[in-house]
């Protein structure tokens, strides 16, 4: 990533990190119990929950990877983010109400707790916990790696630290996250998410309008792009840059995959009053839609500027955002956006640190039938261990982590989505069906992604799929199929659902 070399960027980043640390100090005084640590004492209101959901869901990919992907494949990349306008409603109608009421009926702090309540199966909840730990390590490792690279870029540490630069930068990022996540748990998590969400929103909207203006307006941008040899008309054709199976596959995975993201679902446990869900789809939908404007704005402006001859063609697609900011944006806006990217990465990372620690100290022991002791103390220790472990793994196996991080979303979605979305609405889904669905979703996604991307052999020619089919789309469809098939083949057995939970399922 090119170095900003701008005092405005450096000081904005320092100010941002200072605010985050202060929130951690404030939150530490309000964290007294395991319930506070894992679900913020169930005292969070609508605004904080909505912003926390938005910022946890959006990592740095929205700010950096998305515009880069648009540069590479055109507006087909938008199929990844266009579901945001309705996924808030999908989450609330399908899951949020039931999750929050379950958290009122039972001691439910995590997604595996929900699986245990619903299916009365420690195997199912244990498998869900395993999926979460694997996905967390991958997702968290990728975020910490990105954070290290960003800090290195902002502060120019390579000039002073040489080959130790990345390690030290990652350590700084890990230290800040570990501090506020350990001290304040989810209380710190949601209120830093609120701050980070507001920052991300402001940066995204400001950059969108700036980018459209710099490009010369919508029609000028569009005409420049279609008239260029490098990009051409296919750039603005939704199915021009990639096969239909890829574009609609993005939509399939990112619309339905939301239903299995533990760091998003977890936020609904914290809501103080489920009746506040009334305006949740509006809040989530609006904030996410506005945040995505940066993807569209830079994604269109950069190719237009290249086509117009104002910017050199990019050698690395991920340079789209930094190249635009450093070449065209005022220092203050650049500082705001870099702080926004820091915020996006850290808001996702802190959610996963908490989710992962809960899986280690609560969900896995519960699945194994062990009694856990002081969950608050153990949770804090697990946060440190998880963050340090993921950072070390990311530092030592950087390429592998980047690869794993890109399909962690799909792993969660395929493994957990069907079992939760259908299982919490249809009593006929059995525990064996949930176990099979989770296993198939997780296993198929990991296997197919590794086979195709590590190029162990020419998997693309061996797999019986049409060109452009996404491995995660296969895993998600397979997980749904297995859930229904096994439910119909297995009778609801001894794992009968408690009557109050059953009434919640059937509505």
């Amino acid at each position, binding site marked *: 990533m090119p170095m900003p070399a701008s005092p405005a960027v450096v000081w904005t980043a320092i100010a941002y990190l200072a605010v985050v640390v202060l929130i951690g100090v404030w939150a530490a005084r309000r964290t007294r119990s395991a319930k506070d640590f894992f679900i913020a004492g169930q005292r969070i209101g609508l605004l904080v929950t909505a912003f926390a959901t938005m910022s946890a869901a959006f990592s740095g990919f929205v700010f950096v990877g998305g515009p880069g992907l648009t540069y590479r494949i055109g507006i087909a990349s938008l199929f990844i983010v266009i579901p945001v306008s309705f996924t808030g409603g999908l989450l609330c109608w399908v899951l949020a109400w039931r999750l929050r009421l379950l958290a009122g009926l039972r001691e439910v702090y995590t997604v595996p707790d929900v699986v245990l309540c619903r299916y009365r199966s420690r195997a199912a909840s244990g498998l869900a916990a395993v999926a979460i730990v694997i996905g967390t390590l991958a997702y968290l490792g990728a975020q910490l790696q990105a954070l290290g690279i960003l800090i290195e870029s902002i502060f120019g540490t390579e000039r002073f630290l040489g080959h130790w630069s990345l390690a030290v930068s990652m350590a700084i990022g890990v230290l800040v996250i570990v501090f506020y996540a350990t001290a304040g748990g989810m209380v710190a998590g949601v209120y830093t998410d609120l701050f980070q969400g507001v920052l991300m929103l402001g940066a995204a909207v400001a950059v969108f309008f700036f980018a459209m203006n710099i490009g010369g307006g919508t029609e000028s941008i569009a005409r420049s792009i279609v008239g260029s040899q490098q990009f051409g008309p296919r750039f603005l054709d939704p*199915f021009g840059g990639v096969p239909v199976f890829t574009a609609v596959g993005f939509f399939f995975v990112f619309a339905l995959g939301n239903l299995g993201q533990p760091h998003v679902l977890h936020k609904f446990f914290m809501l103080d009053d489920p009746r506040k869900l009334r305006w949740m789809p509006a809040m989530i939908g609006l904030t996410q839609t506005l945040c995505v404007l940066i993807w569209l704005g830079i994604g269109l402006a950069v190719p237009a500027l290249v086509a117009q001859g104002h910017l050199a063609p990019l050698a690395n697609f991920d340079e789209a955002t930094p190249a635009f900011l450093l070449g065209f944006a005022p220092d203050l806006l650049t500082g705001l956006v870099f702080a926004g990217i820091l915020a996006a990465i850290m808001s996702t990372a802190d959610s996963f640190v908490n989710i992962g620690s809960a899986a280690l100290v609560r969900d896995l022991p519960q699945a194994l039938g062990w009694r856990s002791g002081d969950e608050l103390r153990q949770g804090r220790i697990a946060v440190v261990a998880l963050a340090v472990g993921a950072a070390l793994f990311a530092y030592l196996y950087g390429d592998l982590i980047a690869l794993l991080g890109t399909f962690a979303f799909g792993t969660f979605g395929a493994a957990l989505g069907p079992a939760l979305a259908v299982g919490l609405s249809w009593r006929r889904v059995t525990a064996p069906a949930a176990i099979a669905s989770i296993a198939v979703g997780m296993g198929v996604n990991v296997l197919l992604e590794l086979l195709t991307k590590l190029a162990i052999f020419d998997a693309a020619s061996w797999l019986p799929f049409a060109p452009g089919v996404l491995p995660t789309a296969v895993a998600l469809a397979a997980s749904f199929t297995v859930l229904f098939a096994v439910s119909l083949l297995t009778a609801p057995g001894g794992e009968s659902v408690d009557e109050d939970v059953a009434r919640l399922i059937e*509505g």
Partner: protein
Amino acid sequence: MARSLSLLYLALASPAVLLSFVVGGPAAEVVFTILVMGFPVALIALATARKGRLGPPLRLPLFLLLVVLEGTSVGMLALRGKVMALPWFAGLPLAAVLLLVLWLAPLPVVALGYALTFERRGFDQEERDSADGGGAAGEDKR
């Protein structure tokens, strides 16, 4: 009826999606697209049906959502490769405009649909008690 139809749709559409991946080709792409756009509506209908039926207030927002999802995606498929062949609208090719409609139009439909039908779900007393924190989650586990 709504619950049964949703379950039937999801149970049949899931393996059909897998089949489309294997068969491939333009027809399979169209089938895949149409099936995918129905998933969100089917899941919402399954989750919101009470005693098997979808309440009247929910029918319009879900119908509108389905029309937007299916209509825009089928429209984009029909306009493939015709970026320069058709008139532009608001400074963009028509297919790109449809993509933006797919992105933005569901927001008011879903946001207002959810908010305005919220109370009409008819919460029972147990749900109200649970909402007031009358369950075991009020106790901390150490």
